[in-house]
């Protein structure tokens, strides 16, 4: 049971993307063939197998909860598409 074009539209919506109709159709074909290829993995017996979290079995490193960064506001804001007084500007969200 493959995905339909309307499923593809729904996934695009979840991923915050919007495409042309022809792109949805192309993706429907491609994603279905990729999922078919993936299905081989789903047949494997993995009972009692723990999922991998870190390939070498390390646990996540933690650091002390201390501020380390220097003041780089200017550098960060220099990459902003639209800014005013060190604030990122976006279209109005509250009426």
């Amino acid at each position, binding site marked *: 049971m493959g995905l339909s074009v309307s499923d593809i539209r729904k996934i695009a919506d979840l991923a915050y993307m919007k495409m042309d109709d022809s792109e949805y159709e192309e993706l429907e074909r491609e994603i279905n063939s990729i999922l078919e290829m993936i299905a081989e993995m789903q047949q494997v017996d993995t009972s009692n197998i723990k999922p991998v979290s870190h390939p070498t079995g390390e646990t996540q*490193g933690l650091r002390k909860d201390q501020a380390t960064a220097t003041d780089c506001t200017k550098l960060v804001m220099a990459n902003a598409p639209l800014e005013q007084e060190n604030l990122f500007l976006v279209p109005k969200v509250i009426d």
Partner: protein
Amino acid sequence: MFAKTILQLSQGLQDRQFSAVEIATLFLDRIEKFSNLNAFLDINRDTSLKQAKAADKRLAERRANPLTGIPIAHKDIFVTTDFKSTAGSKMLANYKSPFNATIVDNLQSAGMVSLGKLNCDEFAMGSSNENSFYGPVLNPWDKEHVPGGSSGGSAAAVSARLVPAATATDTGGSIREPAAFCGITGVKPTYGRASRWGMIAFASSLDQGGIMCSSAEEAGLIFNSMLGFDSQDSTSVDRPPENFNRYIDKDLKELKIGIPREFFDSNIDNEVRVAIQAALQALEHAGMNLIEITLPNSHLGIPVYYVIAPAECSSNLSRYDGVRYGYRAEDHENLTEMIKKTRSEGFGKEPKRRIMIGTYVLSQGYYDAYYLKAQQVRQLIINDFSSAFLDCDIIAGPVTAETAFKLGDKIKDPLSMYQSDFYTIPASLAGIPAMSIPCGFSSTGLPIGLQLMGNYFEEAKLLGVAHSYQKLTDWHTKMPDGIS
């Protein structure tokens, strides 16, 4: 001069035969002369020459180490303050990072001189470099062929000697496949060895930085300065520093080289098979023992990879919303529409395809059947390697089933492109160190790569075996025509 090895350049710098500024100028001129390869995305002569002058000062003051004054260039996945950092994407076309990636800083501290940023597949997604927003890179051995990907710019630049060494990243084979296609040495260390801080994320549990250069010995020398624990990367592995070239002069005669049965199936091109078999014989002549091993789950590598990599990619790439940095679309009614338009216009086809697959496999009700399942099957692939390494020291086989394919040949068929990574994905999923070294040419003059894989944290042994092969053969010294 451009044909000198890093060791020769280093000796010349120490002996004051030439200066770091002279070397940097020579390679910067070459980068401009061979700009048709499209390997470089950003250069900045002033910045590079400033670094070279600082290196000369260190050399004069006898504060230098073997890498001081040696030029390097970085895959455009590593962020840099001196150059733009695009990840090969329209999304980051003008992005200027406020900080350097740790790897960039480490190599700069050693005195290496950065010559610029190298083209790659968009967000490191691809096996041909054709997914770059900035156009494909050409293979210096035959410009109608791809250089491989995703680190295609790094491989082409080192192969054409536009720079002696280049950083690269490997998620499913993005160092080894282009290294094989371009006839150079490419090494990916154990997952956790190379800091991921400042390496633009694609699939975090797989992404690993590495190096491309002309020999295993050069790679070890660079690793000595490049790798190490980084508290900024939560998956970095804390181990004491080591000399990665410590096996170079060791007697490796009794080592066992495992040959996985599954890597010599019918898909492999005959010329590639012959070259690999000759390389294995050379190792045997050097006194090593070849033994047959089995990696029974290796055929599951691609299906597992195409769940894990897209899932992690969809999560990592959710940060590109056009709010704080990067591309922002024009003409939108509200915030949601702005983000949707930004992402749709800013990402190319391959990232979109992977974001879509990733979003689907992580969506409600599918997580266990896809992502969790894939991480379980990944454990089976890891177990295969653990068993194999009980019987052997190093595993050897092909990097790719064929030599570099033609530009345009696979770009319209994602599944056949994905299959290019069949032999490289298992080591990426296991997180073990692996490399590609040149071992011959096809009848049409395209390079062939031999893959060597080592056990966790055994980079030194891996490089030692590669070095002993490179002492016996001269494939790694070959250069394409037309690069003088």
